[in-house]
């Protein structure tokens, strides 16, 4: 018995090729940037048009033109930069302190299984408290200045780093450690040469999450009580129904988060050259 298989393959292949060619013109850094900027522009244009047509309330939603005017005004007066700088400083300080202390503590737990098992339920318990709920106490303890915001950011970031570092240290390849012991290495050498380097990717991976948490801590701290910072600015503006200023604050936070993310990305890529090293061929799926 013979079978005839009908196939649309030639036609489909041609269409696929055409699509691929079209895609290729946009699939470059410049092409993608163009598409991304176009998407943002269309979004703002629709919003503005909606406000003008009366579909969107400028009072409750603000308007792009109003946002840009406010943005321009706040840049010129220097307020926006001053507020941004303060929030950024609080966030980074909280991130650095929280991540360093959390990671060190988590790594140190590798040294003693006994201590690790002892403190594990406490860590889980503390971690299960929404740290934001601590904000009022933190303000009571550390006042309304810089320290309370940093403390809040530290409380958010430290446990993430601690748990990641501890887990990574526990998961460190036992065979590498055995190899070092057979060479006559002591516990400190095993720790520094085998355990710590193998946890670095996991610890650096927490940077991405923690830089965001640093910003959360700073902004929430400013919400509760503060005279300065983007959180304060957003809080004040929304209580005055100044939606354009609220959006300016939010977009500025977005830009800060965006920039910090890419800074972390660069740190990640340059600090682990051995992860980047690849063989000459790259696979295409």
């Amino acid at each position, binding site marked *: 018995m013979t079978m005839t298989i009908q196939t649309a393959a030639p036609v489909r292949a041609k269409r696929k090729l055409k699509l691929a060619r079209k895609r290729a013109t946009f699939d470059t850094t410049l092409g993608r940037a163009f598409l991304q900027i176009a998407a943002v522009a269309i979004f703002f244009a629709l919003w503005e048009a909606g406000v003008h047509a009366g579909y969107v309330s400028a009072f409750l939603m603000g308007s792009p033109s109003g946002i840009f005017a406010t943005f321009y005004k706040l840049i010129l007066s220097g307020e926006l930069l001053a507020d941004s700088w303060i929030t950024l400083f609080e966030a980074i300080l909280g991130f650095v302190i929280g991540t360093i202390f959390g990671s060190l503590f988590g790594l140190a737990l590798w040294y003693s299984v006994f201590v690790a098992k002892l403190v594990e339920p406490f860590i889980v318990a503390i971690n299960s408290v929404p740290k934001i709920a601590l904000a009022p106490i933190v303000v009571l303890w550390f006042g309304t200045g810089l320290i309370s915001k940093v403390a809040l950011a530290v409380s958010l970031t430290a446990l993430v780093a601690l748990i990641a570092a501890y887990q990574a240290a526990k998961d460190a*390849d036992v065979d590498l450690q*055995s190899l070092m012991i*057979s*060479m006559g*290495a002591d516990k400190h050498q095993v720790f520094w040469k085998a355990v710590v380097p193998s946890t670095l990717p996991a610890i650096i991976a927490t940077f991405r999450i923690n830089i965001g948490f640093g910003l959360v801590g700073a902004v929430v701290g400013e919400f509760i009580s503060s005279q300065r910072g983007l959180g304060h600015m957003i809080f004040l503006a929304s209580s005055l129904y100044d939606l354009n200023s609220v959006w300016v604050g939010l977009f500025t936070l977005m830009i800060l988060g965006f920039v910090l993310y890419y800074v972390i990305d660069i740190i990640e890529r340059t600090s682990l050259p051995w992860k980047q090293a690849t063989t000459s061929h790259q696979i295409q799926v």
Partner: protein
Amino acid sequence: MPPKQVQLSVANVSKSFAGKNGDVNVLDDLSFSINESDFVSIIGPSGCGKTTIFNIIAGLLEPDSGTITYRGQEIDSLRGRVGYMMQKDLLFPWRTVLGNVLLGLETRGVDAREAEAKAHEYLKQFGLAGFENAYPKTLSGGMRQRVALIRTLIMDPDIPLLDEPFSALDYQTRLYLEGVLKDAVQTYKKTVILVTHDIDEAVALSKRVVVLSGRPARVKVVHEIDIDATSPVTARNDANFATYFKTLCAELDIQTEKTA
């Protein structure tokens, strides 16, 4: 020929592990000895505890009972004096080739400049000059295992313990590395213990082959391999090779039937 001197002897060693259904006896009253400048292969059915023996000699595990004697002295283990090489190359991915080779010397606290000079010398001898700054990820399996071999030998261990070091490699690379190993052992005059499941490899490389029975491991028989060849490839062409191979196969087959 002078009488053979015993370098290492393992006597009446037992070891059991706690398992789901009570203790699992892995080694039971195991004894064997290794002569000076010996090349001993240990073969046996898989899971018979070959790696456990190595872990005990290397000091990674403590035996439940039994003694280890080294050059006439009873010792706990040869920790720090053996070189351990496994099927996995166990190169540290964050260290370059040079960094990996230096690992043991660093651990021992050897002067950095001296260690590096030695490392370069070894890398050159094993044909890895020019790869000092490459990361393991970029190397082929054979090259990685060569780096692991250098890392083992540069420590000048009393006894290199090789645990199926070539079994993850393709046949050609394995033949090549067996040659590299045999040359290195002769150059540095080492006593070597090799665990393998490859009878072919055991006969081609060793002076003696220890056959273990299934779990719990006991020494079933020890064969002296009388093949005087310059390389593992020529050893495979030796007139006696086939006979040894057949004998060992037969011995292992009987045991697989028993344990199955």
